[in-house]
């Protein structure tokens, strides 16, 4: 083991040491030698055919833009939930019913970088109603309805760049948060980048998850132009506060890896959101003109709508004393995690040699007794010694994130030394450590950031897999590793590959999710304007160059399935209603030459595919989802005539 105390605070040396350890791990190990599972591991991850996993983990897709869902402990991938990226598998982001979810002030965006899934909470415990996730690149937050596993809201965050500290939630789902990783000129303007310190600002945003069924930007707090990195909300005694790490207090605007690593300490910003609510109620804010989009699926028609918004309420910490305090925290802190009791605020000082832990009660006392060592833009900086509860010594190199098991222990991921370090809250002593293969980022215990963790497993999300899987050329899968934490020692049970780049994940017991699950969309409640409720209503109508096909599907046919009178230059809308009312009976639709994806239509739902024929002929369409013994018979033809043809619309209805 490398003696960390010898390394002191020299960043270069730390990185060098990390690189050496990493190189040794890679060079000297084979999967057979290191990181092998314990003898009973296979039995512990075995989930019998037809049985459910005990937990389900929602993993961010990172640069895939989606959410992936894995069973735990089996590590079985069983669902990809499309969120920020188009998904031709089911037509998400392609259909007329979903495209508007991807509207932003920059226009339609078919992708983003999704980092942190966050389950909705009631009384500080995940309740299985919603999952939220942030878009990093073009700042947004999405809400996924866990009764259908569908994205139903996406709200854009204005005055922001790099929405990383997001969408961490408050204990009763009052708010999800957002902030600027990349500070910006606010409002945006054309200025020299070198004038960063003069022009660039950060914002911290609070978004209400449910105002009349939709997400709403409640307010923004203007803060100094640092890089705001991660967040967690207080709970118990610290209820009403949210905590945000920030680095680059140097306010560098180039080569940040050196220039933003100079200060011994950066900050955790403690934000009193209850006081912010009061300031808003008292009118102590300014209204700023801006532009952002709020997109949502209408509950009755199940069609996405976009609303352009032009104003945001902004709070200035100088005018609302007590709104924000800075807690000095070594050294470019990354994660900030609040223990289940709500008293301890743990920082992942990624370049620090210790894990600093702040005390909420000491923080309140320090505020009351004005233990300040300075002030930035009206934000008091508290004294480190006055707020610190303790420091975990020898926590591994590059500590990033911490989760809790609800039994008095914390688990911190150490990226550079590639390990999970288990330590005791209160005594700050390290009690166990286990290597990860390789380079762990986030880690996750189901409920591990909540008031009541289900402390049975911890999942490591690793950035590098190297030799752990079959080589597939230069591009390799990321991976996760599952550890049993029910005993004193962590035990490796399972490796499983992941999609995209999972950053954070959250887990919840299956039994909580299952209660809410929807099996079909009742036909009688379908209010899509182009829905048809029976085959008798199926028809084709021409409106100028638009041809609207009101089509039905049921095992095993389309109505109509022969359509004539379409001409080159028409825009043909296949509005397709699935008349099935049984669970697990989707139908699909694909049309030859369509410049878009197929659509997949759930029972009772209506989806629309647009087809623009370019040449005369007769073209087939068919069901893409194997639906019955006669699925291969589920087909139709659409005839296309020249643009100047006189052939009228005709079809075979019922």
């Amino acid at each position: 083991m490398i003696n960390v105390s010898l390394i002191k605070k020299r960043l270069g040396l730390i990185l060098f040491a990390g690189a050496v350890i990493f190189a040794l791990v890679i060079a000297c190990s084979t999967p057979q030698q290191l990181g092998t599972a314990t003898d009973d591991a296979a039995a512990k991850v075995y989930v019998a055919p037809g049985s459910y996993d005990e937990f389900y983990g929602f993993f961010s897709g990172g640069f895939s833009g989606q959410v992936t869902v894995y069973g735990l402990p089996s590590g079985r991938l069983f669902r990809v939930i499309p969120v920020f990226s188009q998904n031709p598998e089911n037509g998400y982001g392609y259909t007329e019913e979903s495209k508007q979810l991807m509207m932003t002030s920059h226009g339609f965006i078919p992708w983003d970088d999704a980092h942190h899934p966050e389950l909705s909470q009631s009384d500080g415990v995940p309740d299985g109603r919603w999952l939220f996730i942030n878009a990093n690149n073009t700042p947004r937050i999405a809400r996924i309805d866990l009764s259908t596993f569908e994205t139903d809201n996406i709200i854009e965050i204005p005055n922001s760049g790099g929405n990383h500290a997001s969408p961490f939630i408050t204990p009763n789902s009052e708010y999800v948060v957002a902030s600027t990783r990349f500070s910006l000129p606010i409002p945006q303007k054309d200025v020299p980048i070198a004038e960063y310190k003069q022009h660039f600002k950060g914002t911290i945003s609070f978004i209400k998850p449910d105002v009349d069924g939709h997400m709403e930007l409640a307010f923004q707090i203007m803060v100094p132009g640092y890089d705001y990195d991660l967040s967690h909300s207080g709970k118990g005694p610290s209820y009403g506060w949210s905590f945000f790490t920030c680095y680059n207090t140097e306010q560098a605007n180039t080569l940040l890896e050196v220039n933003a690593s100079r200060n011994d300490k950066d900050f955790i910003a403690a934000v009193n959101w209850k006081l912010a609510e009061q300031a808003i109620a008292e009118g102590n804010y300014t209204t700023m003109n801006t532009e952002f989009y709020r997109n949502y699926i209408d509950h009755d028609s199940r069609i996405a709508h976009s609303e352009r918004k032009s104003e945001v309420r902004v709070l200035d910490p100088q005018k609302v004393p007590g709104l924000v305090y800075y807690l000095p925290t070594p050294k470019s802190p990354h994660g900030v995690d609040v223990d289940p009791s709500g008293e301890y605020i743990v920082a992942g000082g990624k370049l620090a040699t210790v894990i600093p832990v702040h005390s909420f009660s000491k923080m309140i006392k320090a505020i009351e007794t004005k233990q300040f060592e300075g002030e930035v833009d009206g934000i008091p900086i508290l004294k480190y010694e006055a707020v610190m509860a303790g420091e975990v010594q020898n926590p591994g190199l590059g500590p990033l994130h911490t989760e809790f098991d609800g039994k008095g222990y914390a688990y911190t991921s150490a990226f550079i030394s590639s390990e999970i370090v288990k330590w005791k809250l209160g005594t700050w002593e390290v009690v166990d450590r286990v290597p990860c293969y390789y380079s762990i980022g986030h880690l996750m215990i189901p409920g591990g950031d909540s008031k009541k963790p289900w402390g049975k497993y911890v999942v490591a999300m690793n950035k590098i897999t190297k030799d752990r899987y079959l080589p597939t050329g230069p591009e390799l899968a990321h991976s996760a590793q599952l550890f049993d934490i029910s005993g004193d020692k962590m035990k490796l049970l399972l490796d499983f590959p992941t999609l995209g780049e999972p950053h954070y994940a959250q887990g919840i017991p299956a039994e909580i999710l299952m209660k809410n699950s929807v099996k079909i969309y009742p036909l009688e409640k379908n209010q899509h304007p182009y829905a048809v409720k029976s085959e008798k209503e199926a028809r084709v109508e021409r409106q100028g160059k638009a041809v609207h096909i009101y089509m039905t599907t049921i095992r095993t046919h389309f109505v109509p399935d022969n359509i004539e009178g379409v001409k080159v230059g028409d825009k043909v809308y296949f509005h397709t209603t699935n008349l099935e009312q049984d669970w697990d009976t989707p139908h699909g639709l694909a049309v030859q030459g369509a410049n878009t994806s197929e659509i997949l239509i759930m029972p009772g739902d209506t989806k629309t595919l647009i087809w623009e024929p370019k040449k005369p002929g007769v073209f087939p369409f068919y069901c893409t989802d194997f639906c019955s013994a006669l699925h291969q018979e589920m087909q139709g033809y659409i005839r296309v005539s020249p643009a100047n043809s006189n052939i009228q619309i005709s079809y075979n209805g019922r």
Partner: protein
Amino acid sequence: MKTVYFIQAILLALLFAGCGSDSGKEQANAHPAPPQGLSEWQLEHGIGPITSKVTLEAVNVELAQQGQALFDVKCAPCHKVDERYIGPPLGGVVKRRTPEYIMNMMLNPDEMVKKHPEAQKLLAKYLAPMTYQNVSEADARALLEFLRTQADVVPKPE
């Protein structure tokens, strides 16, 4: 040629194996299982939530009209009254089956197709399994009333 028929039979069997609506569980079997395990009541009146005799009086016209509206939405995609469509014609069905059997077939088609010898015979003939269409017991009763108005319709021979 025999080989070709054999292969076709296997393919058909495979199609069947893949078509159960109750995914991942026991699949429908084209071969009728022996009726052992079913009670006399179930053999006559079907398997499902209807476990006692339905009292029938003179046809209730209003209820039959409700049933017809439901039939258009939930049944007509696969059933006609006077001829075979996807499934069997339903004219005169009330003369062939008991009211309870008809309602259980609407309310519990998955289990009927898996366990009831009569439902299994129909599946073997029509290949498309009867689907559950999210009908309540009240819906099924209205549909039954509509089918009672079609008692004397003689379907075209298949």
